[in-house]
């Protein structure tokens, strides 16, 4: 949910008359900012690769074009599913032009992607973004020389400040097919000619396809050709392996080296560097080093977690919730509303709004008085972390731990995003390279990663329970993740994978971006969550009226009362938890607040709720992404495991006589 607005995808207004403009580029260089500048649509922007995992589209307000934003790609050869999405979009069978967004201060890397994009034969514009950073680090880029060398328009922009927008629009209007033709090794050229003759017609140039096949992985052959073209596939595979046998180095290296030599020549002609300057502020750079230090890195992490706990747990869940709930709601807002609605003569109708399971007294109060302040605070803190560039560094710190669970550091980003929203995080598992990793990550997200709303409530409860309970909770949940991840990595076929990622620089977060991100996410939360809160309350209300609730509690009570030693009433929180875990957690919060549960019970309850099946939206996404068989297995496993782990936890806590 952290990236909520991304879920609102293509808005179906695409007309075939308007041309298409594809935004392509390496991760984390501001494609999404350019996209919102061009289309006027808000998209979440962060400082780590993988913010965009789906194709977004929108109408460019000042151009007669549909702009399509694609997931960032490291190179033209896809490493993971999200990168494959981009390659497919580039190759899709329709005319289009491409706007490559690149990092101005990292021209070599940018141009390594420009060359293959130029080879696609589509009209191309190169936008060198973050020109201010390039300038600060002492680079002077001669765009005219670069433009002449590439045969396409080249512009400089600073997207976050909307600098260079007019130049960019102008360049897009004048985009042209690149006149650049790179000649590769004669043996490669020969192979290209032979592959081209086997390939069907396509919108992208066949030379580009051939080169991508030669430099790429063998599954691309299946991607580029129709299923039944067995003969041609075999012929192409044959050509590739024949060509490979003529070289000592992998073909991709041979091709990349030719491109790199070309890029170096172009850079020599168009870039001067006045002086070597370090871009970042010195303290920022020191922090960068500290954040990945084998010892200090964990200190930094601990400080961040402590800050998060203080801000979200103590401040927001404590003072803010108290204020909103007690003063604002119970003191000012609710009394007049309740007085007004108490005139409703029909008892059931009256109770539907202001009864024990009333839409206003329970649904809205939970959503707005308990969850909303906590979530807003969490979003604010999380946005700050995202924009700073800290998250990929966390991957460096936790890589080894993650290998125990059959994952690697790359999975840190989806897992940490799960602390924002499990639903979105499940989508982001696409950045992982193998199916095995995607399944494990999905499982762990469903099992033990509390989403922001739930986490906020959890922090709130633990700050009230006190006595270091939060640490015990973290240890317990981490242990469950380790155990389940370890077992899953043993059960699932496939071996360990490698960890390889780029680290974006630390950036001073921009207040306006953080505020607008928090604003959009909070808005999204209200729109997305409140209907579920109301729906859940309505369900409880009707279940109560019809006696279903009693019956359900009867069914659940052996588990809830017998295994967990929780009050019978808490089963309603677990029923709500099916809909949304934060709602369930808020239910426990309320019970604890009313003194119906003691610290130990709240601890067990929250632990079970955390491990419990994820919310409905997340379950849907799991089915969509992983297929119903895997999804069914995952969900039922998580359900059973939560009950088992909760029982064991309760047993041991009572055995060791631990009280809070």
């Amino acid at each position, binding site marked *: 949910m952290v990236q909520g607005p991304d879920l609102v995808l293509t808005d179906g207004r695409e007309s075939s008359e308007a041309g298409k403009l594809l935004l392509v580029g390496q991760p984390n260089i501001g494609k999404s900012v350019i996209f919102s500048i061009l289309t006027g649509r808000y998209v979440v922007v962060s400082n780590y690769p993988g913010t965009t995992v789906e194709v977004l589209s929108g109408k460019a307000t000042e151009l007669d074009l549909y702009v399509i934003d694609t997931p960032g790609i*490291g190179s033209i050869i896809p490493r993971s599913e999200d990168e494959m999405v981009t390659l497919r979009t580039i190759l899709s069978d329709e005319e289009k032009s491409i706007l490559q967004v690149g990092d101005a201060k*990292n021209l070599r890397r940018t141009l*390594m992607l420009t060359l293959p994009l130029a080879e696609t034969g589509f009209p191309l514009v190169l936008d060198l973004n973050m020109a201010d950073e390039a300038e600060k680090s002492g680079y002077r880029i001669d765009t005219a020389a670069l433009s002449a060398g590439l045969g396409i328009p080249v512009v400089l922009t600073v997207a976050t400040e909307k600098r260079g927008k007019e130049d960019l629009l102008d360049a897009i209007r004048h985009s042209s097919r690149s006149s650049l033709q790179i000649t590769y090794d004669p043996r490669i050229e020969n192979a290209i000619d032979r592959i081209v003759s086997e390939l069907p017609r396509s919108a992208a140039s066949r030379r580009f396809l051939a080169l991508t096949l030669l430099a790429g992985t063998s599954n691309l052959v299946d991607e580029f050709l129709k299923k039944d073209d067995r003969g041609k596939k075999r012929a192409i595979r044959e050509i590739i392996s024949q060509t490979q046998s003529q070289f000592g180095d992998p073909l991709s290296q041979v091709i*990349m080296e030719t491109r790199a030599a070309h890029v170096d020549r172009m850079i020599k002609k168009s870039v001067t560097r006045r002086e070597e300057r370090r871009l970042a502020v010195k303290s920022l750079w020191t922090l960068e080093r500290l954040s990945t230090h084998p010892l200090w*890195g964990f200190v930094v992490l601990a400080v961040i977690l402590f800050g998060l706990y203080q801000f979200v747990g103590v401040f927001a869940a404590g003072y803010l919730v108290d204020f909103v709930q007690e003063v604002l709601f119970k003191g000012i807002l609710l009394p007049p509303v309740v007085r007004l609605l108490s005139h409703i003569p029909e008892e059931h109708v009256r109770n539907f709004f202001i009864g024990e399971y009333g839409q206003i007294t329970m649904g809205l109060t939970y959503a707005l008085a308990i969850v909303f302040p906590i979530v807003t605070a969490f979003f604010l803190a999380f946005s700050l972390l995202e924009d700073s560039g800290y998250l990929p560094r966390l*991957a460096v710190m936790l*890589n080894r731990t993650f290998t125990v669970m059959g994952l690697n550091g790359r999975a840190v980003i989806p897992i940490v995003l799960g602390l924002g929203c499990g639903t979105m995080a499940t989508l982001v598992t696409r950045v992982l390279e193998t199916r095995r990793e995607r399944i494990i990550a999905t499982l762990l997200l469903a099992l033990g990663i509390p989403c922001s709303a739930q986490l906020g409530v959890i922090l709130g409860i633990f700050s009230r329970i006190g006595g270091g309970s939060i640490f015990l909770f973290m240890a317990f949940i981490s242990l469950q993740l380790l155990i389940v991840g370890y077992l899953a990595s043993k059960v699932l076929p496939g071996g360990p994978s*490698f*960890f390889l990622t780029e680290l974006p620089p630390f950036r001073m977060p921009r207040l306006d971006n953080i505020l607008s991100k928090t604003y959009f996410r909070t808005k999204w939360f209200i729109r997305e969550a409140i209907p579920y809160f109301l729906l859940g309350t309505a369900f409880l209300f009707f279940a109560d009226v019809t006696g279903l609730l009693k019956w359900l509690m009867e069914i659940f009570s052996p588990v809830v009362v017998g295994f967990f030693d929780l009050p019978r009433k808490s089963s309603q929180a677990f029923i709500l938890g099916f809909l949304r875990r934060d709602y369930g957690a808020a239910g426990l919060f309320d019970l604890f607040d009313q003194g119906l549960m003691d610290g130990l019970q709240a601890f067990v309850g929250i632990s079970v709720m955390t491990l419990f099946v994820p919310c409905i939206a997340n379950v849907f996404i799991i089915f969509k992404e992983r297929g119903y068989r895997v999804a069914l297995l995952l969900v039922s496993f998580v359900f059973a495991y939560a009950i088992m782990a909760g029982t064991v936890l309760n047993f041991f806590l009572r055995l060791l006589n631990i009280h809070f």
Partner: protein
Amino acid sequence: MEYKKTPLTEEQEEALSEIWMRIENRAEVPQVGDSVSLTKMRHREGLGELTREDYLKVEGDEVKLTEAGYAEARRFIRNQRLSERLLSDVLNLEMEEAERTACRYEHMLDTDAAESICILLGHPRTCPHGKLIPAGECCVSGETSLRPLVVPLSELEAGETGTVAYIGTTDNARLAFLSSLGVMTGRPIELIQKKPSYILKVDENTVAFDDSVSREIFVRPSQRKRPPVKMKSRFRWGQGR
């Protein structure tokens, strides 16, 4: 021992080594300025060029080693004899075959490679024929642990720099990703840290990866970790024998 001149041809190297050996045959340790008779030389093809490039001086019938010529001859002789040692001792070739093979590749060895062989063999003093092997830097500093010229990144210490020699993987997607970040043959790199994960700086990019990837990136470390060697002690050789 760095010379900005054009590299010597095989003939020229042979000519220099012949001069060296003729001096040795007189039971002398060759020195700068030693000379041999021009008419007796078997390898004469390269002599003209060697004289023009100031490796040799011809005075009447005498061919004299200049400082540069002495250093080159010494270097070449060292390579040659180390090669013979390597081939006969380590690879167990028959003497004759060892000589023949050594003849071919002694021309290809550079100083660094010769040092590695020297360390590997424990700084041998003589060749299989019993001739003295001129000492190298490594013999003086007494280095005992061999550090190959090209090592996987995992062998580098944090903070060291170097250039990428090659990427030892056949995974094209990984290769493409690495080369897009500038991790490719010939590029300078700096290893920031090794734990808890590797962090590598290339140009403006920072890349993080684990052990398995670090073993696939092969680099030439730029400063080899050796105690500094003073120029004066460098050419002492054959001492104590």
